[in-house]
């Protein structure tokens, strides 16, 4: 089976030895101990595993690692963004399991659309599930971050 020998994660080149069809999420979590991205569904439906690939949000549970080779992978561990403080200020979490994916998705939105409308936020974020139901606070956190940008 073809292998992937190296990934660039959060700006650092990391040697790995992974079958090319393995999901990126598995490699990040089990090989590189980057556990901020979570398993939630394995079918790209919940967004808990979201990471950035060359700045674009992707569901790492479904992405074969070969598709990430040679690209810039950014995980929650590599994100330093005012949206994180906004989540704290708005209390935009309960159990926090979805939070990594929410922030990665939200940062991708704000980088592409610095002042999104409410409808744009909902459309962009709709693939991320918060089972605790903090959606309105997450929308508020994104809006507050945009206001202060």
């Amino acid at each position, binding site marked *: 089976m073809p292998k992937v020998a190296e990934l660039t994660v959060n700006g650092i080149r990391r040697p790995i030895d992974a*079958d090319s069809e*393995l999901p990126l999420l*598995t490699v990040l*979590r*089990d090989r590189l*101990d*980057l*556990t*901020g*991205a*979570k*398993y*939630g*569904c*394995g*079918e790209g*439906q*919940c967004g*808990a595993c979201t990471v950035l690939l060359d700045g674009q949000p992707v569901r790492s549970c479904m992405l074969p690692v070969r598709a990430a080779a040679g690209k810039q992978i950014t*995980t*929650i*561990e590599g*994100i330093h963004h005012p949206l*994180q*403080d906004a*989540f*704290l200020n708005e*209390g935009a*979490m*309960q*159990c*926090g*399991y*979805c*939070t*990594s994916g929410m*922030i990665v998705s939200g940062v991708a939105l704000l980088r592409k659309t610095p002042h999104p409308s409410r409808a744009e*936020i*909902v*459309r962009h*974020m*709709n693939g*991320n*599930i*918060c*089972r*605790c*139901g*903090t*959606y*309105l*606070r*997450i*929308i508020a956190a994104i809006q507050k971050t945009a206001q202060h940008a």
Partner: protein
Amino acid sequence: MPDPIEPERYELSAPPTYRFATDRRGFLAMLGGGLLVVFSAGAQESGGRRRGAEAVPQDLGAWLHIGPDGAVSIYTGKTEVGQNIRTSLCQAAAEELHCPLASIQLVMADTSLVPYDMGTFGSRTTPTMAPQVRRAAATAREALLDLAAEKWNVARAGLSIAGGQISCPGVPASIGFGALTQDRALTRTIARDVAVSQPLRQSAPKIAARDFVTGKHKYTPDLTRPGMLFGRLLRPPAFGASVASVDAPALPGVTVVHDQNFVGVAAPDVQAAADALRQIKVEWKRQPVPPGAASGPGLYEYLKRNAEPLTGDTQASVEDAIAAADIKLQGAYTVAYIAHAPLEPRAALAEWQDGKLTVWTGTQVPFGVRSELAAAFGIPEDRVRVVVPDTGSAYGGKHSGECAVEAARLARAAGKPVKLVWTREEEFTWAYSRPAGLIEIASGVHRQGTVAAWECHNYNSGASGLVGKYDFPKQRNIFHPCQSPLRQGSYRGLAATANHFAREVHMDELAHALKMDPLEFRLKNVKDERLRAVLQAAADAFRWGHGPGIGIACGFEKNGYIATCAQIAVEENRIRILRVVEAFDCGAVVNPDHLKNQIQGAISMAIGGALFEQVRFADGQIANPRFSQYRVPRFSDMPEIEVVLVDRPDLPSAGAGETPIVGLAPAVSNALFHLNGTRLRSLPLILG
């Protein structure tokens, strides 16, 4: 009357016959010097009620310790699953000790370190655990003041305590807690009559919240141990199927376990585990599925057919009173099985060392899981340690320890630590559901608007919230346990959601029959001042009476009073919830922002059960075990939500994680009737 906390009848098995004293000498030695406040036998029990032989705990658990460095540590068996009790319990201690929140560390849900606790359910943390933490902290505060008075040789009355320091007029420097105890090891027992204060009603932020926005927090699936293997189970093709034969090839580096109906593997990585699983051939013997044991309209007749016979019902029949009433009404209401679908699925990491077992797992009942593990492996409980990291939600869905047992079984066979994380499909299929139920109501009402009599039968879904706060002069409310075709158990609010749905929709139907405003009709039938207050508060904030598609519902559960108003529209033959106002009275408010978060979250979660969630099943199989097939609320489903806190600082605080979920579904169903005359009596509310 149902017990106000209704320990979950499906999940709580009988307590062990014996509970031997735990040897905590090692733990006490580890603490070293400082001030230790302990819980004593005879003091108030831990959260949840104890029964029989467990009535008095034989062991002393450490409740609060202040180290020589001044660090305050509190030990509790409660678990943090997103309800933010780590924060509220620390607030309780900090308020009594008059010290910064940051100087308090809460050690939670580690069975080797914390006192016995029945579990985190029934909204019991705030009403029972928080007062105990307060008493422990207040006992420590009094002891510290004694020490300071002794040190300075002054009267206690002149001392003041603030910011984690004790000061005395005329003494230039204040003194910290640690400096008072120094290296002495002092012990106090929680004083029963120690004075504690009411909550300060402060919105302290979630403790360690930054760890969640940076991905640093470690949930159970994020943990590793040296040499750890990854587990996977081969699941039966249907409920009740048993293993007839197993053919497993020997695979290098892979441990295969076949034990009765348990077939699983442990491998060096998840890929190897999945590959190994595919190479095992199992012949299964399936159980016949009784006719009707499937989701759909026939389910409710199936449940009623399979109800336990009624015994001991000696209450006078209310039939005569209903027959004599001006207007008579009957209605049948149903709720589907729904899944908790916590975003963190069941997970466990098990490690055996020298015959002792440690399991890290996300559960609401660490001591219950310890018992399960001890029973499964035939070892004493003191050789089992269960540790619960702050967990990715539960909603009543993590009262069981099957994943912990599975991981431990694999780890014992492999001789290495094993981590097992259930797939989403396993979580949907092999966890348990909120019970489905059929609720039949017959009522009679006087023309002037008061209910004369009420008879209600709940089949299968449960007794929580079965009896409302209305002043029905004659009523009979009966819960009929049934044989459930699906594994079922507790869910946020238990049956209160189903019972409130049935009662509040039926009340709306009565109001309509009387041509009376639904709010006015409710107020006419309830004297309870707190229920009236939340009804009025919700109606005022909502501006009740204006606009199309509006509905109202109210209720009482676990000492919380709730009223919900909703406005809806119908778009593409689906209900869209536009606006929700919910007023809630849970006694004295502890942390206003976290309380609002819980209420907003409960309303958001309730949208799923109200509009689209249902577990579909047939032939002993779940038909929709994925998020692509089982629709949960998303951003696009969110209405505008307004929360009105009806604060009662003069009353004890009730828990708030559950009750706010009960009002939405009936308010939405009633709003639909108001909009277009369609009356839906089944959850989820799906337009034909």
